[in-house]
C-alpha cells in the first residue's frame, strides 16, 4: 500500500521527535544541575522508596554511634573509678593481713584504724563519683547522690544506698541495647549484706580499734577471718570492672560494625540517588544533537514544496 504523506503528518512527526528530544534534554540538564538521579518520585519510584529506607537506617546508625561514644566514655570513667576502688581494697587487705600478725602492737593497729577511716572516706567519694554532672553508680537515679553515710561518735558508722537498682540503657546498634553503667549494689554490695564493701571496711576499722575489747588471740583470729571478707568485696569490684571492660570491648566491635554498615549504606544511597555525571553529560550531548537534528528536519520540510521549483 502506498502511503500518502501530507505536510501535516510530516510536520507532526518532526515536532513529535523534537518534543521527545527536548524532554530527554531537560532530564539530562536537571540531573547535571542537581547531581541527583531522582528529582521527583516518578523518576525512579522503587529506587526512591528504597533510598528512603536506606537513609532512615543511616540516620539511626549515626544516632547509635553518638550513643555508643557516650556509653563508652561513661563506661571507661566507671571502670577507671573502679580501679581506684580496687586499690583501696588491696590496701585494706594488706592492712588486715599485717594487723592479723601477732607481732603487731595495739598502737600500730590504732594507726591502721585511722588509715582505714581514710580509705572509707575515699571509697565513699569514689562511690559518689560524677560524670558530666550525673552520679555514676546511682543507677537511673543519677541526679541524686547514691551513698549517704551515718555518723556515730564522729566516725562513719554505716553507709546506706539511696539510688536505683536499675541502670539506664542506650541503643548502640541494631537490636543492641547496652547498660551504660553499674548500679552501686552490684559494685559495692547490697547494703547490710555480707557483700557490703562499706560494712566490710567499717568492721575492719572497728576491729583495728578493738572497740569490742577482744583478747589478742580473738582479735588476731577475727582479723584473719576478715581477710576473706575483704577479699570477697574486692573480687566483687573486680567482677564489676570486668563486666564494664567486656562491655567496652563489645562496644568497639559494635563501632566497627556500625562504621561498615554506614559505609555500605552511603554507597547504596549514592547508587540509588546520585546521577552518573559522565553518563548525564553524554546524554546531554546526545539529546542536544537529536533536538538539533529534529529542528533541522522540520525546517527542511517546510521549505520543500513544489512552489519552490515553479517559475
Amino acid at each position, binding site marked *: 500500500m502506498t502511503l500518502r504523506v501530507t505536510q501535516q503528518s510530516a510536520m507532526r512527526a518532526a515536532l513529535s521527535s523534537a518534543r521527545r528530544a527536548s524532554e530527554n534534554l531537560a532530564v539530562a540538564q536537571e540531573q547535571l544541575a542537581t547531581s541527583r538521579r531522582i528529582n521527583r*518520585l516518578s523518576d525512579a519510584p522503587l529506587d526512591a522508596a528504597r533510598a528512603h529506607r536506606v537513609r532512615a537506617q543511616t540516620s539511626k546508625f549515626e544516632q547509635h554511634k553518638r550513643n555508643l561514644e557516650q556509653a563508652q566514655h561513661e563506661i571507661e570513667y566507671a571502670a577507671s573509678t573502679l580501679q581506684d576502688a580496687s586499690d583501696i581494697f588491696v590496701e585494706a587487705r594488706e592492712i588486715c593481713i599485717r594487723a592479723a600478725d601477732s607481732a603487731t602492737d595495739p598502737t600500730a593497729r590504732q594507726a591502721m584504724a585511722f588509715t582505714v577511716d581514710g580509705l572509707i572516706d575515699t571509697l565513699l567519694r569514689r562511690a559518689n563519683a560524677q560524670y558530666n554532672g550525673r552520679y555514676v553508680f546511682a543507677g*537511673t*537515679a543519677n541526679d541524686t547522690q547514691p551513698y549517704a553515710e551515718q555518723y556515730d561518735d564522729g566516725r562513719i558508722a554505716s553507709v546506706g544506698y539511696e539510688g536505683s537498682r536499675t541502670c539506664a540503657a542506650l541503643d548502640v546498634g541494631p537490636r543492641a541495647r547496652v547498660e551504660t553503667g553499674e548500679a552501686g*549494689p552490684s559494685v559495692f554490695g547490697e547494703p547490710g549484706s555480707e557483700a557490703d564493701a562499706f560494712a566490710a571496711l567499717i568492721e575492719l576499722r572497728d576491729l583495728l580499734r578493738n572497740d569490742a575489747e577482744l583478747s589478742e588471740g580473738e582479735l588476731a583470729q577475727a582479723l584473719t577471718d576478715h581477710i576473706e571478707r575483704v577479699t570477697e568485696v574486692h573480687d566483687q569490684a573486680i567482677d564489676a570492672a570486668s563486666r564494664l571492660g567486656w562491655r567496652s570491648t563489645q562496644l568497639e566491635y559494635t563501632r566497627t560494625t556500625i562504621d561498615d554498615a554506614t559505609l555500605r549504606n552511603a554507597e547504596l544511597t549514592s547508587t540509588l540517588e546520585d546521577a552518573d555525571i559522565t553518563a548525564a553529560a553524554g546524554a546531554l550531548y546526545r539529546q542536544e544533537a537529536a533536538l538539533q537534528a529534529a529542528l533541522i528536519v522540520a525546517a527542511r520540510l517546510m521549505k520543500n514544496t513544489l512552489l519552490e521549483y515553479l517559475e
Partner: protein
Amino acid sequence: MDTSLSIGLSALLAAQKALDTTGHNLANVHTPNFSRQRTITASIPPSRVTALETGRGVATVRVDAVRDQFIDRILLARDPASGAATRRSELLSEIESLFSVDPETSLGAIIDELFNSFRELARNPSGSAERGGVVHQAQTVAIAFNDLAEHLDRLRRELLPATQEVVAKINALAEQVASLNLQIRDCRVNGGEANDLVDQRLTALRDLAQLIPIDVTYDYLDRADVRAAGFLLVANDDTTELAANADDGLCQITVGDSSVPYAPGGGQLGAILDVANAVLPDYLDCLDTLAATIAREVNQRHATGVGHSGSFASIVSTNPVADALAPLNQCRLPFQLQSGHLQVSVIDQTTGEVTQSKLAIHPNTDSLTDLAAALDGVDHLSAQVADGYLQIAGASGYAFDFANKVVTHPGSLGTAAVTLEGNVQLDATDTYTFTADATGTIGTTAGLTVTVTDSTGATVAVLDVGEGYQPGQALSLRGGISVSFGAGDIDATAPDTVAVELVADPDAQGFLAALGINTLFGGSDAASLRVRPEVAADPERVAAGRSDDGGDNANALRLADIQDEALAALGSETVDGYYAAFIGRVGLDAQMAQTGERTATLLLDAAQNQRDAISAVNQDEEAVNLLRYQQLYAFAARYVRSVEELTDELMQIL
C-alpha cells in the same frame, strides 16, 4: 455556434469550480479534521442521439470530500484514552510534586528525626535541650502532615470546578453537534453535500471524545446520534445535559433530571473524577492512617510514662466526649477501643508505698461516667466528668500514674512481709509466685530459700534468705524489680506463697491515648495532628521515663522503638516501610500516567497519520491541480475565442 459556445462555457465553469475547490483545499490545509474536496465532473450528452451529434461539454456533478468513516471511528475511539491519559498525567504530576524527595525536608525524613529526637532524649532524659528537641520535632512532624493534607485536600476541592468546567464544555459541544445535525439535514434535504459542515461536526465530536467516551451512529440524512456510556447525549437535534456537583466530598455527575451518579468511564472527565474520587481520597487515607498510627503509638507509650516531675497530683483528659453517658465507642474518640484493663498506681508520697488497681473497661457498654466512677473507687484517688472531660486527682499526700510500677506490698510469706520495688521491664505480662522451699526463720535458718517462678512454672530465681541474709535487704530479680523479705517465719508445708502480677503494659488497649490523658499528640488524622499545647508550653511534661529518677530513660527508649515495630494498623509494616511503600505508589502512579500519556499520544498520532494519508490536503498535489485547472481554463477560453472568431467570420460573409 450556440452549442459550441455552451461547450466552451461549460468547460470554463468546470475549470472555475475545480479551481475554487483547489483554493478551498489550500485555504484549509491546517484546518483540523478538514477533508480535502474534489470536483466530480461528467460529460453532458448530446440533446439528440444521432451519428454526427457530439456532447455538449462538461458539468460538475458534485463536490466530494475524501474521507474514510472507519478511520474517523478509530480516532473517536482513541481520543478518550488520549484525553484521559493527558489529564491524568497532568494531575498526578501535580500531586507528585507535593511529595519532596529532598533527604532533609521530605515527610519521611522529618518523621525519622522525631524518632531520633527520642533517642537523643534517651541519652540525657533530664536535659531541657533534649526535651525541647522532642517538642520541636513533634511540632515539625505535625506541621508537615498538616501541610501535605491541606495541599491534597485543596487539590481535591479544586477538581470540582474543573469537573464543572469540563461538563460545561461537554454540554456546549453537544449543543454544537445538535445544531450541525440540523444544518446537515437541511443541506441534504436540499440536495447539498454539506462537506464542510460534516468536518465541523467531526471536530466537535473529536473534542467531545477527548472529554468523554462516545459512540456515534448516523442516520440516512447523515445526522449523528451520540451515546455516552449508556445514555443518549445527542439525538438528532436534541441534547441531554450533564451536571457536576459535590456530594459528601466526592465529585458527582448526573444526567438530565436523574439523581443517579453517572460514571463516564474515560476521557478527561473520567480522569478527573478518578483522581478526585479515588486517587486523592486514597492518598489522603494513607496519610491519615500514617499520622493516626504515629499519634496513637506515641501517645500510648507516652501516657504510661511520666514527665520530669514524676507522678501526677491531678490530670485532665484532652479529648472530650459529647455525651458522658454514651458508651465510649460511640463517643467519636480518635480510634475504636477493645475491652481490656487499665492499671493505675497510687503512690504514698511520704512512705513511697505503691498500691495498684486494675480496672476492667468494656468500651461498647461503659461510658466515661462509668470510668470516672471506677477511678473514683480507687483508694486515695478521685475522679469526675466535667464538660465531657475526665478529671482525676490524688488525695492530699498521694500521687498517681499509669506507669508500670510494681505493687510495694503484695502480701506476706508466712509472717515475713514481702516488699517489692522497681518498674516492670518485661515484654509480656507475667505472674511471679514466691514459694517457701523450707520452713525456718528469715535471716537465721541456714540454707533457707524462696523460689520464684513465672506463670509457666519456670524458675526465675532461687533466693537465699537464710543465715546471713539481713531482713529488708533487697534482692534483684529478672524483669527490673527487686524483692526483700521482712523478719518472720516461713513454712514450706503450708505452703506459704505470694503471687504478684507484673503488668508489662498498664494500658494495652490505649484508653489513655483515646481520651488524651498524658499524651504528646492531639488530633486523629493528618490535618488535625498537633502537639498538645500543655506539652509544647512545658517540655518537662515529655514522658522520658517511668519513674521520677533523673536518669530513667525507659520511656524514651520505648518511644524510639516504635520506629522499628511492625504495626498492625500499617498492615504489619514499620513506619518507614509504610511511608516508603506510599511514596513508591505515588511515584509509580505518576510514572505510569506519564507512560500512558506517551502511549496514548503515539496511538492517536498513528491514527491521525492514517486519516491524513486519506483526507488531509497535500500542498504539492493542490499545486499540480492549480496548474491543471489553470491550463484547462486557458484552453477553454482559447476555444471560446476560436468560436467567437468563427462567428465573426460568418458575420462578415453574410
